[in-house]
């Protein structure tokens, strides 16, 4: 298993190879994919990408937490969190690829 990290740059490079656009424009398009997903989620919308997965915004209610260091009780305000549910295809490809 060769550990490496894919970044925006690698995605832009893949788009550049796939479509006849400049590297610059390829990078901008990768950015706009991420921006549109983020905007929808920030607006409380869920984002469902078939054969990839679903991003859902969940609302968590206020609760009492505890400072683990001091043991002191502190209120935790209500918040929205993001969950990602991978598609079947993603689960299968990730599992099969890593077992090889």
């Amino acid at each position, binding site marked *: 298993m060769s550990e490496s*990290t*894919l970044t925006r740059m690698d*995605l832009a490079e893949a788009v550049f190879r796939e479509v006849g656009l400049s590297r610059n424009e390829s990078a901008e398009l990768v950015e706009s994919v991420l921006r549109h997903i983020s905007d929808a989620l920030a607006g409380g919308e869920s984002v*469902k990408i*078939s054969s990839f997965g679903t991003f859902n915004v969940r609302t968590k209610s206020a609760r009492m937490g505890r400072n683990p260091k001091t043991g002191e009780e502190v209120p935790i305000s209500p918040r929205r969190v993001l969950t990602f549910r991978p598609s079947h295809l993603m689960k299968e490809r990730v599992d099969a690829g890593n077992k090889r």
Partner: protein
Amino acid sequence: MIKSELIQRIADENPHLYQRDVERIVGTVFDQIIEAMAEGNRVELRGFGAFSVKKRDARIGRNPRTGEAVPVEQKFVPFFKTGKLLRDRLNDED
């Protein structure tokens, strides 16, 4: 929002691109992320989040209906952690 709407929003902002090229671009982004994880790699998109692969050890599971013990193989599952910027945006835009 579903994938076709995402494609449409990007196509609307880029009238100089063919719709089918926008489809390929969006498809390439998602495909590369899956491909990287299938090779055991991480995908780090600052401000958005990070995709990684977690290993789940083999275990003895149980058939909930019969109570029978069944071996479950080791498996690898995709995992997403929300980036700080996006996490903050979820909570200050109301």
